């Protein structure tokens, strides 16, 4: 997991270099154009434009290469990407040196741009590699300056900009190269130190995050065991009470019936709470979904069938408008059905008798959106997000039903988010609330 994260970050770095180079190419092209047209400086412009063209071509090949490396979610080896980054930086040093050669050598102050390369190297490479890059830059630029001084390489004059002859002055050359080398090594030293500290921090954050995840896992396993044990006892209690309540071992008087009935109902409520907690925890613990392709329309129809009885008992009408198109989704149909059933049961519970619940399914960009709109008590303002938290119950919901689990919506939220979707709730302007969730379309 961690190395995967790092390799993704390396690819992003490689892409960043390519993007930076697009910008550099644009700047080089414009600077050349600017110098030729406005500054009246004489330079071998054709050669500079050719370098710009070559650079453009080179960058395009790199861009294509990275795309191929990551084609269809492939994860290339980290060493491969690191090698490519090193290659890019070294090549850039060489290209900058040749640009400088054609634009005045040591007389062109753009040699300061080597500093940028050093910063980039220090961020993306190891300490040693960064110092090697600095040495390479000093070697390349130093060779250029010295070869031009001794006439082995042609010196292109920056006519109209710098005093001509500087390239020939040994003191100037020595001084400039000395400061140049010192600057590059110092930049590398400072940047790598800062980056080192940042990396350490990041590593410790990642470590802490991992530990938190592990702790959460332990907590979930603990809850799972606990609820499982409680459920066993509860089931036994329920069975025993049931026998007495149904007068299978002798008749009961009215008072006895009343008391045992209360006990039975409360056991049932406890049972549904434990069952909800068990489901939620199991889902939390299950790492990956067991995905299959399924039809959302069918799941919606199933959920409506499950809740229909209870709606009819309260004379609540459920209007379902799911269209005729078949909408397919990847995921675990059981979880989605459970989610929708939870939302629908809530809508029925908190909608007064005679009310209406309308359910719609719509296509919206790359997702499908399911909406459940009721004419119920609505959500107290400001609690629209809290109601999805574990054990949280809206203040007005408590008044309607004293013993809700406070887990139904957290289950829904986690199930939908595991599918890459979103869930949210709003109050309707004319009363009642609308619960919506979205699911990404299946790629076919």
């Amino acid at each position: 997991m961690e190395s995967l994260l790092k390799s993704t970050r390396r690819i992003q770095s490689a892409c960043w270099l390519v993007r930076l180079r697009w910008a550099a190419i644009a700047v080089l092209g414009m600077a050349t154009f600017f110098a030729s047209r406005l500054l009246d400086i004489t330079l071998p412009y054709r050669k500079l434009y050719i370098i710009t063209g070559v650079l453009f071509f080179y960058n395009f090949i790199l861009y294509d290469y990275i795309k191929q490396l990551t084609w269809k979610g492939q994860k290339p080896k980290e060493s491969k990407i690191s090698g490519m980054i090193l290659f890019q930086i070294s090549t850039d040093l060489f290209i900058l040196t040749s640009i400088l050669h054609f634009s005045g050598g040591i007389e062109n102050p753009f040699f300061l741009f080597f500093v940028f390369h050093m910063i980039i190297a220090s961020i993306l490479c190891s300490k040693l590699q960064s110092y090697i890059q600095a040495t390479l830059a000093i070697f390349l630029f130093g060779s250029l300056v010295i070869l031009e001084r001794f006439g082995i390489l042609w010196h292109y004059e920056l006519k109209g900009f710098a005093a001509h002859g500087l390239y020939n002055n040994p003191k100037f050359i020595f001084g400039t190269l000395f400061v140049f080398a010192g600057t590059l090594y110092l930049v590398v030293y400072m940047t790598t130190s800062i980056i080192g500290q940042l990396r350490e921090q990041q590593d410790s954050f990642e470590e802490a995050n991992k530990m938190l995840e592990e702790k959460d896992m332990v907590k979930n396993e603990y809850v799972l065991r606990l609820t499982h044990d409680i459920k066993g006892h509860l089931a036994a209690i329920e069975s025993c009470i049931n026998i007495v309540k149904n007068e299978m071992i002798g008749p009961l008087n009215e008072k006895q019936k009343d008391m045992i009935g209360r006990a039975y109902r409360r056991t049932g409520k406890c049972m549904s709470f434990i069952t909800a907690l068990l489901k939620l925890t199991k889902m939390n613990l299950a790492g990956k979904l067991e995905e299959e392709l399924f039809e959302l329309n069918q799941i919606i129809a199933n959920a409506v069938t499950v809740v229909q009885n209870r709606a009819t008992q309260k004379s609540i009408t459920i209007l379902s408008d799911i269209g005729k198109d078949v909408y397919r989704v990847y995921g675990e149909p059981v979880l989605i059905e459970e989610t929708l059933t939870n939302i629908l049961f809530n809508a029925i519970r908190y909608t007064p008798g005679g009310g209406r619940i309308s359910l719609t399914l719509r296509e919206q960009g790359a997702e499908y959106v399911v909406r459940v709109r009721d004419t119920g008590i609505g959500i107290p303002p400001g609690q629209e997000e809290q109601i999805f938290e574990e054990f949280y119950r809206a203040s007005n919901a408590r008044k309607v039903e004293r013993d809700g689990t406070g887990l139904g919506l957290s289950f829904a939220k986690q199930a939908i988010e595991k599918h890459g979707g979103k869930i949210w709730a709003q109050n309707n302007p004319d009363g009642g609330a609308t619960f919506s969730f979205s699911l990404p379309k299946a790629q076919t």
Partner: protein
Amino acid sequence: MEKAKVLIIDDDPDITEAMRVVLENKDYIVNNAEGIEQAMGFLKENKPDVIILDVMMDTPQDGFILSRQLKQDVNLKDIPILMLTSVKDKIGIDFESVAGDETWLPVDAYMQKPVKPDVLLEKIAGLLKKP
């Protein structure tokens, strides 16, 4: 001897009913209220001999607020209060040490849920004996 009157203030009907059965069995007269307002309404007209008060109703503070309200009322402050609680585990208050503290939790006795019938009867009898 006249039958003693008990007022149960609890919003859980099942707990209320379970206590009612136990108490009525021992010839107490039992009334109940589901919240602060209903209780105060009842107390305007009636004066029970003992009050059983659930500490946590709509909000975790309801029982505390009501117990202080009762002890500040000249007509009601003599009625002993038995506080009923299941919150020790949830909010971490040790009731044994604070029950009876006049400013903090001015109640005369306290009892943990679940209610054991013999403990309930014993506590109520104890409170009624006090002058």
